Protein backbone atom coordinates (compact mmCIF):
# COMPACT_ATOMS: atom_id res chain seq x y z
CA UNK A 1 0.00 0.00 0.00
CA UNK A 2 1.37 3.43 -0.86
CA UNK A 3 2.74 5.68 1.84
CA UNK A 4 1.12 9.02 2.62
CA UNK A 5 3.84 11.39 3.73
CA UNK A 6 3.20 15.12 4.12
CA UNK A 7 5.81 17.48 5.51
CA UNK A 8 4.41 19.81 8.15
CA UNK A 9 4.08 23.52 7.46
CA UNK A 10 3.27 26.46 9.72
CA UNK A 11 -0.45 25.81 9.22
CA UNK A 12 -0.69 22.13 8.33
CA UNK A 13 0.42 19.08 10.32
CA UNK A 14 3.06 16.54 9.45
CA UNK A 15 1.41 13.30 8.37
CA UNK A 16 2.92 9.84 7.96
CA UNK A 17 0.72 6.90 7.12
CA UNK A 18 2.87 3.88 6.36
CA UNK A 19 1.33 0.41 6.67
CA UNK A 20 4.55 -1.58 6.04
CA UNK A 21 6.56 0.22 8.71
CA UNK A 22 3.56 0.53 11.05
CA UNK A 23 3.75 4.31 11.23
CA UNK A 24 0.51 6.21 11.65
CA UNK A 25 1.02 9.74 12.85
CA UNK A 26 -0.43 13.23 12.61
CA UNK A 27 1.63 15.87 14.40
CA UNK A 28 2.25 19.59 14.68
CA UNK A 29 -0.14 22.41 13.95
CA UNK A 30 -3.38 22.17 12.05
CA UNK A 31 -5.08 25.37 10.96
CA UNK A 32 -5.40 25.08 7.19
CA UNK A 33 -7.57 27.47 5.26
CA UNK A 34 -9.61 24.53 4.01
CA UNK A 35 -9.51 21.72 6.56
CA UNK A 36 -11.81 19.42 4.60
CA UNK A 37 -9.54 19.61 1.57
CA UNK A 38 -6.42 19.01 3.65
CA UNK A 39 -7.86 15.97 5.46
CA UNK A 40 -9.46 14.36 2.38
CA UNK A 41 -6.38 12.29 1.37
CA UNK A 42 -5.94 11.17 4.99
CA UNK A 43 -9.53 9.95 5.18
CA UNK A 44 -9.18 8.22 1.80
CA UNK A 45 -5.98 6.54 2.89
CA UNK A 46 -7.63 5.17 6.05
CA UNK A 47 -10.58 3.86 4.05
CA UNK A 48 -8.23 1.98 1.76
CA UNK A 49 -6.21 0.73 4.76
CA UNK A 50 -9.38 -0.64 6.38
CA UNK A 51 -9.67 -3.20 3.56
CA UNK A 52 -6.17 -4.55 4.14
CA UNK A 53 -5.23 -3.61 7.68
CA UNK A 54 -2.46 -4.76 10.00
CA UNK A 55 -3.43 -6.83 13.04
CA UNK A 56 -2.66 -3.86 15.26
CA UNK A 57 -2.64 -0.16 14.52
CA UNK A 58 -1.23 2.41 16.88
CA UNK A 59 -2.39 5.76 15.53
CA UNK A 60 -0.48 8.71 17.01
CA UNK A 61 -1.78 12.23 17.38
CA UNK A 62 0.89 14.64 18.57
CA UNK A 63 -0.71 17.99 17.97
CA UNK A 64 0.52 21.24 19.31
CA UNK A 65 -2.47 23.17 18.13
CA UNK A 66 -5.54 22.70 15.94
CA UNK A 67 -8.39 25.00 14.94
CA UNK A 68 -12.05 24.13 15.32
CA UNK A 69 -12.52 23.15 11.66
CA UNK A 70 -9.63 20.68 12.05
CA UNK A 71 -11.16 19.29 15.22
CA UNK A 72 -14.25 18.31 13.23
CA UNK A 73 -12.00 16.55 10.70
CA UNK A 74 -10.00 14.83 13.46
CA UNK A 75 -13.31 13.42 14.68
CA UNK A 76 -13.93 12.19 11.12
CA UNK A 77 -10.51 10.46 11.16
CA UNK A 78 -11.36 8.83 14.51
CA UNK A 79 -14.76 7.73 13.21
CA UNK A 80 -13.06 5.97 10.30
CA UNK A 81 -10.57 4.31 12.69
CA UNK A 82 -13.48 3.22 14.86
CA UNK A 83 -14.56 0.84 12.12
CA UNK A 84 -11.15 -0.86 12.02
CA UNK A 85 -10.38 -3.65 14.45
CA UNK A 86 -7.22 -3.47 16.58
CA UNK A 87 -6.77 0.30 16.61
CA UNK A 88 -5.30 2.15 19.58
CA UNK A 89 -5.18 5.94 19.55
CA UNK A 90 -2.11 7.40 21.24
CA UNK A 91 -2.86 11.00 22.16
CA UNK A 92 0.20 13.07 22.99
CA UNK A 93 -0.01 16.42 24.74
CA UNK A 94 2.56 18.76 26.20
CA UNK A 95 2.73 18.18 29.95
CA UNK A 96 1.42 21.67 30.77
CA UNK A 97 -1.22 21.70 28.04
CA UNK A 98 -4.46 20.88 29.81
CA UNK A 99 -6.54 22.09 26.87
CA UNK A 100 -4.91 19.51 24.57
CA UNK A 101 -5.33 16.81 27.22
CA UNK A 102 -9.01 17.73 27.57
CA UNK A 103 -9.45 17.73 23.79
CA UNK A 104 -8.15 14.15 23.70
CA UNK A 105 -10.46 13.12 26.52
CA UNK A 106 -13.43 14.62 24.69
CA UNK A 107 -12.60 12.74 21.52
CA UNK A 108 -12.31 9.59 23.61
CA UNK A 109 -15.86 10.20 24.87
CA UNK A 110 -17.15 10.68 21.33
CA UNK A 111 -15.87 7.46 19.77
CA UNK A 112 -15.57 3.79 20.69
CA UNK A 113 -11.80 3.52 20.52
CA UNK A 114 -9.06 2.64 22.95
CA UNK A 115 -7.07 5.75 23.90
CA UNK A 116 -3.64 5.97 25.51
CA UNK A 117 -2.43 9.32 26.78
CA UNK A 118 1.23 10.31 26.70
CA UNK A 119 2.95 13.54 27.68
CA UNK A 120 6.05 15.08 26.16
Amino acid at each position, binding site marked *: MKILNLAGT*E*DTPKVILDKENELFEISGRS*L*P*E*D*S*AEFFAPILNWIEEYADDKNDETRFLFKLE*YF*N*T*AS*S*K*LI*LDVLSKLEEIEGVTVVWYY*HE*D*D*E*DMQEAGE*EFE*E*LVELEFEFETY
Partner: protein
Amino acid sequence: MKYIYELHRTMLDKDLILIYEGEITQDITKSVLSMAERNMDSYGEQSKIKRKVFNVMVECLQNISKYAVPMEETSDKKNSAVFMIGKEDNSYFITSGNPILSKNVKDIAGRLDRINDLDKDGLKNLYKDIIKNGKISAKGGAGLGFIDMARKSGEKLRFDFEPINDEFTFFSLKTTIPRKLK
Protein backbone atom coordinates in the same frame (compact mmCIF):
# COMPACT_ATOMS: atom_id res chain seq x y z
CA MET B 1 1.37 64.28 10.60
CA LYS B 2 0.22 64.67 14.19
CA TYR B 3 -2.15 61.71 13.78
CA ILE B 4 0.85 59.38 13.67
CA TYR B 5 1.89 60.51 17.11
CA GLU B 6 -1.72 60.34 18.29
CA LEU B 7 -2.10 56.81 16.98
CA HIS B 8 1.12 55.86 18.72
CA ARG B 9 -0.13 57.45 22.01
CA THR B 10 -3.48 55.66 21.67
CA MET B 11 -1.70 52.35 21.24
CA LEU B 12 0.36 52.96 24.36
CA ASP B 13 -2.59 54.28 26.40
CA LYS B 14 -4.82 51.36 25.43
CA ASP B 15 -2.03 48.79 25.92
CA LEU B 16 -2.31 47.66 22.31
CA ILE B 17 0.54 45.49 21.12
CA LEU B 18 -0.65 44.83 17.59
CA ILE B 19 -3.16 46.46 15.25
CA TYR B 20 -3.97 45.28 11.78
CA GLU B 21 -6.41 46.98 9.44
CA GLY B 22 -7.24 45.62 5.99
CA GLU B 23 -8.10 42.43 4.24
CA ILE B 24 -7.67 39.22 6.25
CA THR B 25 -6.51 36.19 4.31
CA GLN B 26 -4.87 32.93 5.39
CA ASP B 27 -1.41 34.35 4.64
CA ILE B 28 -2.11 37.43 6.72
CA THR B 29 -3.50 35.23 9.48
CA LYS B 30 -0.20 33.30 9.54
CA SER B 31 1.84 36.51 9.62
CA VAL B 32 -0.21 38.08 12.40
CA LEU B 33 0.06 34.87 14.42
CA SER B 34 3.81 34.75 14.10
CA MET B 35 4.14 38.44 15.04
CA ALA B 36 2.02 37.96 18.14
CA GLU B 37 3.93 34.81 19.04
CA ARG B 38 7.26 36.60 18.75
CA ASN B 39 5.91 39.46 20.80
CA MET B 40 4.77 37.15 23.62
CA ASP B 41 8.07 35.25 23.46
CA SER B 42 9.98 38.51 23.83
CA TYR B 43 8.72 38.98 27.37
CA GLY B 44 8.72 35.30 28.21
CA GLU B 45 4.99 34.70 28.43
CA GLN B 46 4.19 31.23 29.76
CA SER B 47 3.42 28.74 27.03
CA LYS B 48 0.01 27.94 28.48
CA ILE B 49 -1.16 31.52 28.07
CA LYS B 50 0.51 31.84 24.69
CA ARG B 51 -1.38 28.84 23.39
CA LYS B 52 -4.71 30.25 24.58
CA VAL B 53 -4.06 33.62 22.96
CA PHE B 54 -2.97 31.82 19.80
CA ASN B 55 -6.15 29.72 19.82
CA VAL B 56 -8.47 32.66 20.16
CA MET B 57 -6.55 34.62 17.51
CA VAL B 58 -6.87 31.82 14.97
CA GLU B 59 -10.62 31.41 15.44
CA CYS B 60 -11.12 35.15 15.33
CA LEU B 61 -9.02 35.71 12.17
CA GLN B 62 -10.38 32.68 10.33
CA ASN B 63 -13.94 33.71 11.18
CA ILE B 64 -13.28 37.02 9.48
CA SER B 65 -11.51 35.55 6.46
CA LYS B 66 -14.38 33.10 5.98
CA TYR B 67 -17.43 35.12 6.86
CA ALA B 68 -16.74 38.84 6.56
CA VAL B 69 -18.68 40.59 3.86
CA PRO B 70 -16.62 42.20 1.11
CA MET B 71 -16.66 45.95 1.57
CA GLU B 72 -16.78 46.85 -2.14
CA GLU B 73 -20.47 47.48 -1.87
CA THR B 74 -20.35 49.59 1.27
CA SER B 75 -17.44 51.86 0.42
CA ASP B 76 -14.43 52.02 -1.85
CA LYS B 77 -12.47 49.84 0.57
CA LYS B 78 -11.81 46.18 0.03
CA ASN B 79 -12.66 43.45 2.50
CA SER B 80 -11.62 45.62 5.39
CA ALA B 81 -11.47 44.42 8.95
CA VAL B 82 -9.64 45.49 12.05
CA PHE B 83 -7.83 43.17 14.42
CA MET B 84 -6.12 44.14 17.67
CA ILE B 85 -4.33 42.48 20.54
CA GLY B 86 -3.65 44.20 23.79
CA LYS B 87 -1.85 43.25 26.95
CA GLU B 88 -2.78 44.49 30.38
CA ASP B 89 -1.23 43.49 33.70
CA ASN B 90 -3.76 40.74 34.30
CA SER B 91 -5.00 39.83 30.86
CA TYR B 92 -4.70 39.82 27.11
CA PHE B 93 -7.55 41.00 24.96
CA ILE B 94 -8.19 40.04 21.38
CA THR B 95 -10.52 42.32 19.47
CA SER B 96 -11.82 42.21 15.97
CA GLY B 97 -14.25 44.22 13.88
CA ASN B 98 -15.64 43.53 10.45
CA PRO B 99 -18.69 44.29 8.31
CA ILE B 100 -21.43 41.68 8.19
CA LEU B 101 -24.83 41.61 6.52
CA SER B 102 -27.37 43.33 8.78
CA LYS B 103 -29.81 40.48 8.26
CA ASN B 104 -27.33 38.17 10.07
CA VAL B 105 -27.09 40.33 13.21
CA LYS B 106 -29.94 38.56 14.99
CA ASP B 107 -28.48 35.12 14.36
CA ILE B 108 -24.96 36.06 15.50
CA ALA B 109 -26.23 37.90 18.58
CA GLY B 110 -28.41 34.92 19.45
CA ARG B 111 -25.51 32.49 19.17
CA LEU B 112 -23.24 34.68 21.29
CA ASP B 113 -25.93 35.24 23.94
CA ARG B 114 -26.52 31.51 24.12
CA ILE B 115 -22.79 30.87 24.58
CA ASN B 116 -22.50 33.56 27.26
CA ASP B 117 -25.37 31.99 29.19
CA LEU B 118 -23.56 28.67 29.50
CA ASP B 119 -21.10 27.60 32.19
CA LYS B 120 -18.00 25.46 31.59
CA ASP B 121 -19.88 22.17 31.37
CA GLY B 122 -22.64 23.69 29.28
CA LEU B 123 -20.07 24.90 26.76
CA LYS B 124 -18.43 21.50 26.68
CA ASN B 125 -21.76 19.80 25.96
CA LEU B 126 -22.64 22.29 23.24
CA TYR B 127 -19.22 21.78 21.66
CA LYS B 128 -19.60 18.01 21.69
CA ASP B 129 -23.11 18.21 20.29
CA ILE B 130 -22.04 20.40 17.36
CA ILE B 131 -18.85 18.50 16.57
CA LYS B 132 -20.80 15.26 16.50
CA ASN B 133 -23.90 16.37 14.63
CA GLY B 134 -22.77 19.43 12.72
CA LYS B 135 -21.32 19.56 9.24
CA ILE B 136 -18.49 21.62 7.79
CA SER B 137 -20.11 24.59 6.06
CA ALA B 138 -19.56 25.57 2.44
CA LYS B 139 -17.11 28.17 3.74
CA GLY B 140 -15.16 25.52 5.62
CA GLY B 141 -16.20 26.37 9.16
CA ALA B 142 -17.37 23.90 11.78
CA GLY B 143 -19.64 26.32 13.65
CA LEU B 144 -17.43 25.93 16.72
CA GLY B 145 -15.30 29.09 16.67
CA PHE B 146 -17.20 31.24 19.18
CA ILE B 147 -17.69 28.28 21.54
CA ASP B 148 -13.97 27.51 21.42
CA MET B 149 -13.11 31.15 22.10
CA ALA B 150 -15.36 31.12 25.17
CA ARG B 151 -13.93 27.82 26.39
CA LYS B 152 -10.27 28.72 25.92
CA SER B 153 -10.65 32.13 27.55
CA GLY B 154 -12.95 31.07 30.38
CA GLU B 155 -14.55 34.52 30.07
CA LYS B 156 -17.70 35.91 28.49
CA LEU B 157 -17.42 37.12 24.90
CA ARG B 158 -18.18 40.80 24.52
CA PHE B 159 -19.72 42.05 21.31
CA ASP B 160 -21.33 45.03 19.71
CA PHE B 161 -23.03 45.98 16.45
CA GLU B 162 -22.75 49.40 14.78
CA PRO B 163 -25.06 49.95 11.81
CA ILE B 164 -23.20 51.07 8.67
CA ASN B 165 -26.35 51.35 6.54
CA ASP B 166 -29.50 49.29 6.02
CA GLU B 167 -27.64 46.44 4.47
CA PHE B 168 -24.40 46.29 6.45
CA THR B 169 -23.45 46.32 10.10
CA PHE B 170 -20.05 46.52 11.74
CA PHE B 171 -19.57 43.62 14.16
CA SER B 172 -17.07 43.99 17.01
CA LEU B 173 -15.96 41.14 19.23
CA LYS B 174 -13.67 41.11 22.27
CA THR B 175 -12.25 38.10 24.08
CA THR B 176 -10.26 38.44 27.29
CA ILE B 177 -7.69 35.90 28.42
CA PRO B 178 -6.61 36.15 32.04
CA ARG B 179 -2.84 35.99 32.43
CA LYS B 180 -3.14 34.25 35.75
CA LEU B 181 -5.18 31.16 35.23
CA LYS B 182 -7.59 29.94 37.86
